[in-house]
């Protein structure tokens, strides 16, 4: 177990280094942030001054190593554009992001897992056909369309919920549903397929032939095994949501990490961009690690070594 943890930690460091270097290089390849920051009629001298103030006149590698050095001490630097510590900017957005990600995620599991099992057990019935078709549509319909339709109905027509913004629970409902619907569509289809595969497996037939109770067969032999691919997929979905759901955040004016990241790209705010990417990558590594631990709980055959 300790060896597993150490190996995982080592891998995580490598992943984060590669990601940060990639972000740094690709960011700088896009060009000069000063051109975007300075007003349109700033003089050349004024732009040079800003460049040296931001440290952009130093060689690239020097800039990278000073970033890594500071990051190791827990200092992610100052945002070029907002002149505020990057870590503060990310932490400020964290509650909103986690709230939306967690609610959307739980909602999608609450829909997907029972529904997936139900239609797997009732395959080729009207229910199966209906649910699969709806899931298909849900998966293909773009997020922004679903979001706009929800706003048009619940906020503008019925005036039951606010159009957009961040505040109490009423503000959370529509964006969480928007996220949950798409994610649930994907997970439902996976749950159904996975369940069907397990139900047709030899060991389930054997278990049934042994005369075990249906409940035991379903929960002990089938459900846990069927959950393995779903847990993997759900882990990825959650990691993605914590990295920011840009489109949903944009439509609902939700102040999350996704919009922070995309704005950093548009404004070439390199320190902020590197900070947000590192944050998202860390979330990804962490959640994958948790998923691995979950495998052990679900399937005793899996050993961590």
């Amino acid at each position, binding site marked *: 177990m300790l060896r597993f943890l150490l190996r995982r930690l080592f891998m995580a460091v490598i992943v984060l280094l590669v990601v940060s270097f990639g972000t740094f290089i690709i960011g700088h390849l896009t*060009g000069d942030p000063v051109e975007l920051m300075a007003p349109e009629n700033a003089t050349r001298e004024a732009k040079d001054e800003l460049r040296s103030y931001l440290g952009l006149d130093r060689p690239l590698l020097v800039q990278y190593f000073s970033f890594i050095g500071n990051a190791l001490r827990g200092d992610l630097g100052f945002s070029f554009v907002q002149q*505020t510590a990057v870590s503060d900017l990310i932490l400020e*957005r964290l509650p909103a992001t986690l709230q939306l990600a967690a609610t959307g995620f739980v909602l999608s599991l609450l829909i997907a897992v029972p529904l997936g099992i139900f239609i797997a057990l009732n395959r080729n019935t009207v229910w199966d056909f209906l649910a699969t078709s709806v899931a298909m549509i849900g998966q293909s319909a773009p997020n922004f369309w679903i979001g706009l339709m929800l706003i048009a109905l619940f906020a503008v027509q019925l005036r039951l919920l606010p159009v957009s913004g961040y505040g109490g629970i009423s503000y959370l409902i529509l964006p969480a549903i928007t996220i949950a619907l798409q994610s649930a569509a994907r997970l439902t289809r996976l749950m159904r397929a996975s369940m069907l595969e397990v139900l047709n497996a030899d060991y389930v037939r054997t278990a049934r032939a042994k005369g075990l109770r249906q409940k035991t067969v379903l929960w002990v032999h089938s459900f846990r095994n069927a959950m393995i691919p779903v847990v993997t997929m759900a882990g990825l979905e959650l990691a993605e949501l914590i990295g920011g759901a840009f489109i949903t955040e944009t439509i609902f004016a939700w102040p999350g990490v996704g919009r922070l990241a995309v704005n950093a790209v548009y404004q070439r705010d390199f320190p902020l961009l590197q900070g947000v990417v590192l944050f998202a990558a860390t979330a990804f590594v962490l959640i994958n690690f948790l998923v691995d631990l979950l495998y052990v709980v679900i399937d005793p055959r899996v050993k961590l070594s």
Partner: protein
Amino acid sequence: MFRKTSSRLARQLMLSSAVALTMAAALPAPTWAQDNETITIASANDVISLDPHMLNSNHPTGSVIWSIFDSLVRRAPDGTPEPRLATSWERMDDVTWRFHLREGVTFTNGEPFNAEAVKVNFERMNTAPFSTYQQLHDQTGLKEVNVIDDYTIDLVTEAPTVNMLYWLAEAFISAPKYMTESAPDKVANEPVGSGPYKLESWQRDDRLTLTVNEDYWGEAPDAETVVFRVVPETSSRLNELRAGTADIAVDITPDIAGQADSDISSAVYVEGLRKMHMGINLNGEQPALKDPKVRQALNHAVDVDTIITALLDGKTVPIPSIVNPPNNNPDLKRFEYDPEKARALLAEAGYPDGFPLTIQYSTRYAGGKEVSEVVASYLSEVGIQPTVEAVELGQFREMLANTSTKGIYFMGWAALINPSVELVILTCGHVDNSSGYCNEEYDALVKKASQTLDDAERKKLEFQAQEIVWNDAPWLYLWRLPVVFGKANNITYDLRADNYVEPYLMIVE
């Protein structure tokens, strides 16, 4: 048997999740505050910084800074300077301006406003990084700030300038001691000014709330609270307006402006100050563009009126000069749509069969793709072989700075009412001269005008300069960018063409 049992189980599971959903929907809906004392302004972007010397865009950063801070003079919507923290001013000699300051003004932290405060602020503006954003020194040649007494200050420039009052309107004054003694991020987040409002709270990318400054020296604003909300999606901004939860929606594009019209709100069109054009790069890949006849031919080849009707719903007018009204030379003749004449000019210049030409656009201005394609089709009718190309914004701005666009490019210039600044950008080698246009006669006139203090004499020089550059045609002249707002019907306020939104002047019914 097996299937039946399990499906009952699954049904129960489904039922419980359905209950969860219903419960979520049944939560109490927010109460809609019909409080007349709050104005909500929905914009596409957040404020960048509340450091008054980092002001780099008119809205929303500029609008908030205008509400929290005061400058010496205010710029009226038509460009006229009005007293603000300066009550009056006079010219002492060609290079010295004297300002008499308002007495009895205090900043919201209790510091008094006086001549020393002005001096400290102006000196800070001239240091990095503020000097990149703050243009007072660059644009006026300000070199000395002399305190005469507590409420009198002299500004001395290197050469005579006509731009002093214009740029003073964007030079904001903060509490001097607070500003120089606090960390930069504190100044950027916790502004201390003397304006009609003060900051109550700011949740980045969500909302910024202002509350009325009880000690404001001027007339108290109508609304006690102003909320600047960030709603990045245009249709969501309009939905907020229609649902009654926003009073002003900014950054609306003409194509969906109609959605602002409801029983409680409507779209407001303002003829903008930004002069849209196709910049013509004389130093680009196509040497033919060096010939003024060719550039005139391009202007005759495109039917601007038809494009305005078809693409912009007729909501704007062609630009009358490279200088905005009311300072434009009214005698300039438009390049009428005349493909025959365009072909003749091209033949005269030695290009009877036209030439290949690249048209570039970026995401900076809405409709770049459509405009570029329409212009391309007009140009191909007179024998030119155009290609349309999209360029990423940052790259585009670099190309403009280096005069390295390929051929012609969709551009909007200078939302200003200041002929001196509008003219100078097309002088030889100027940092904003992205078309590489260079005419010494023009340069001399522009320079002379910017140092001529006599109004009538200056106007004459400016008119001459306008005529030269108009006929040399370094641009393919298009239209004034229409500025569109959505406004709740119970708000009385004249929206400005320069996009500054001033909540302290809004009347709520």
